[in-house]
């Protein structure tokens, strides 16, 4: 009888260690290992919703009335970003890798169930916005600007440009590019606008100072927690004090807010303060995907832990709450899923 072969402990340890790593690789890339989804159904006086998770996760459900997410978001890709950046550096605008930021924000929006994204250069954007104005669809559109300047075909510092008309007609502007409307590009030149703040908000309210710290959570409306907003800078953020029809979220310092939404005509201007980073990326995605704005009436916020599997919940809806939107996000500080459901 042959003696039993001796186990090579070192080889066995190596094989186990390698196989565990490869198992992790399979989990990371196989798809189906982690699954998160949500859905909602609106009744006459209630909304029932479902959160499906492959493992326990915190979730929050934000029910709002009066404002729904835009169905289509333009993201402006400024072809002249690098060229003119040295001219604005001293104003405090942080340099960003615009292409990378656009890619990251698009993916973050996708996670939150938002897919109507169109990345546009200057001329394409001007065409789209003109068409929106012509066919009256600006109110269902959004525009995200990450650059410090817009092309003259869209904005030249006056109220009769496409941008201002588009917002007035109901478009949602999400601005995260420094001092809003301070610059525009014309040909090879970068031009400066005087009175940009008055044009957008009717008064001076943009934080152009050095102190950009924001250590106080804006929690009066519960949105900061419901959307787990994280970015706490007020650089080029606005102070909504004295502004009618305005709301702020996130964090504040010296009166300025990290995120603020202000009425302009029929539309809205949402200023997301600070330089780009992954916290700001997530905040932009949460704000856009949830459709939250100055118009939103916070009806109810639910949060808790969804256990592994399917979890059903419901909320009562007071009558006359207007157009409803239920935005569910899963994962808390580290969002793995989001989704908006629009009511009747």
């Amino acid at each position: 009888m042959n003696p039993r072969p001796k186990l090579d402990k070192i080889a066995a340890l190596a094989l186990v260690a390698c196989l565990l790593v490869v198992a992790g690789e399979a989990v990371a890339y196989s798809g189906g290992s982690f699954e998160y989804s949500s859905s909602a159904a609106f009744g006459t006086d209630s909304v029932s919703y479902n959160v499906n998770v492959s493992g326990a996760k915190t979730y929050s459900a934000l029910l709002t009335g009066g404002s729904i997410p835009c169905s289509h978001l333009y993201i402006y890709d400024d072809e002249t970003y690098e060229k003119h950046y040295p001219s604005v550096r001293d104003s405090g605008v942080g340099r960003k890798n615009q292409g990378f930021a656009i890619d990251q924000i698009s993916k973050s929006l996708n996670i939150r169930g938002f897919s109507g994204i169109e990345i546009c250069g200057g001329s394409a954007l001007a065409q789209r916005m003109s068409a929106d104005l012509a066919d009256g669809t600006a109110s269902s559109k959004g525009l995200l600007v990450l650059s410090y300047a817009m092309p003259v075909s869209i904005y030249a510092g006056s109220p009769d440009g496409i941008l201002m008309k588009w917002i007035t007609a109901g478009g949602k502007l999400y601005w995260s590019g420094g001092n809003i409307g301070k610059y525009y590009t014309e040909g090879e030149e970068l031009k400066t606008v005087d009175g940009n703040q008055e044009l957008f908000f009717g008064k001076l309210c943009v934080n152009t100072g050095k102190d950009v710290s924001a250590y106080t959570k804006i929690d009066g409306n519960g949105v900061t927690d419901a959307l787990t907003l994280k970015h706490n800078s007020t650089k080029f953020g606005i102070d909504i004090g004295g502004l009618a029809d305005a709301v702020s979220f996130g964090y504040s310092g010296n009166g300025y807010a990290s995120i603020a939404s202000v009425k302009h005509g029929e539309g809205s201007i949402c200023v997301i303060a600070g330089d780009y980073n992954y916290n700001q990326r997530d905040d932009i995605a949460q704000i856009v995907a949830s459709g939250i704005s100055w118009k939103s009436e916070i009806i109810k916020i639910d949060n808790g832990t969804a256990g592994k599997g399917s979890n059903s919940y419901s909320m009562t809806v007071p009558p006359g709450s207007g157009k409803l939107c239920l935005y569910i996000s899963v994962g808390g500080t580290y969002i793995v899923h989001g989704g908006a459901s629009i009511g009747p």
Partner: protein
Amino acid sequence: MVRDSLPFRSAASFVARPFFLVILAGVIVRIIAMFLLNFDFDSNYWAMTIANMQAGHGLYGLEGYYYTPVWGYVLSLFASLQEAFLGIDVFGTRIAEILSIEAYYNGGTYLFSATSTSMWFNFWFKVPMLLCDLAVGYLIYWLVKNRGGDEKKAVLGMALWLLCPLTIIIMSVSVMFDTISVLFTLLTIALLFKERYFLGGVTFAFALLTKFFPGFLLFVLIAYILSKNRGDGTGYRKLAYAMAGFAAAFLILMLPQILDGTFAETFTFLSARTSSAENAPFLYRLQSLTAVPYFLGVLLASLVLSLRFFRKEHKDLESSFIMTCGAVIVLLFMYPCPPQYIVLFMPFVIFAMLFGDRRYMRSWILLSLGGAVLILSNNASLLTSFAYDTGWIRLESLTYVISLFQHPLFLGLSTEMLIILAGTVLQLLGLFTFAHVYLTGKKKSEAPA
């Protein structure tokens, strides 16, 4: 019948053995630290990495993971186990009350995060590192015995790893995964000793794709394989086996990134270390500018040391090989580096202590203390998770203590900066001590026949 190296006639006698007691002590002290202290700045990134994976973007689709993929795969595996069996619903929280500590961030020296991962998250995702620490301890035990050491010496080697303040703190407080890289590096060495070249090549790829530093041992490993098989002329064939193992493992590990076009992102770690932030202090910018030439120099030195090793006749090839590896790594880390990198060096210091010159003990002490001081310089911030989750420490107290450490104390330097400088000096002294003993006590450091 010859019993194996881990004989235990009964459970009682096994438990009473120093081998077990060392493991027990190492585990207990780690578990306490794993719960109590945490470096949130890095664990926040691990939580982000897991969330990005769970959201379907793999390791590199969304920003948050800057390393080669092995650690990400480990996180992925433990995330799936966690979902299946544990139910940790909260990964972390952005704590408004401590946002002010992030203002101390200065691009390199102070790394504070107000996003704090939860205690259970911290504990669970440190478990793979704990297991690796134990496996490394066992490998040191095996290597010492393999080179002719007795049980007492082997257990001492294991104890010097498992009870080393540096390795304890890096794994259980700093949350850095260097121990995984150490595990695969030592496995590579042990497998080559056992002439399992293909598998040795595989584990080397795993080591390299965990952290890049074991890559600097490439020439020494080649020299060892060729030297070992010089007699029978099979050196190049054996080297080919190892290379085949390496290539296969590399391909398997990198396949997702090759297919989804994020291959370049897997090396962000390298560019991040050589293109420091514009706002970083002068010394850090200087460091980033000199990093590439320095590491190229180390690679060249590694080639020279390997050639010397290859050409020379050795009384004990394996021990000389280990010492040559140690020499390459000490050169590598003489360039100012964070303490977690030093973890890769510690097994070689331990081996040198046990088989070479007792003076290497000074190096072990200095490196252990230096690394521990550097990590603990993060002072009260290490208690954030514990304070937030238990409520036993007021968050205001934490921010107050953190601010005290930031106040200028001497020559405009803050207490924290002075502690960092002290830790850095200790660490450098530890490295120079090793180099000094290596150069002056060469004959003594030739391992036993």
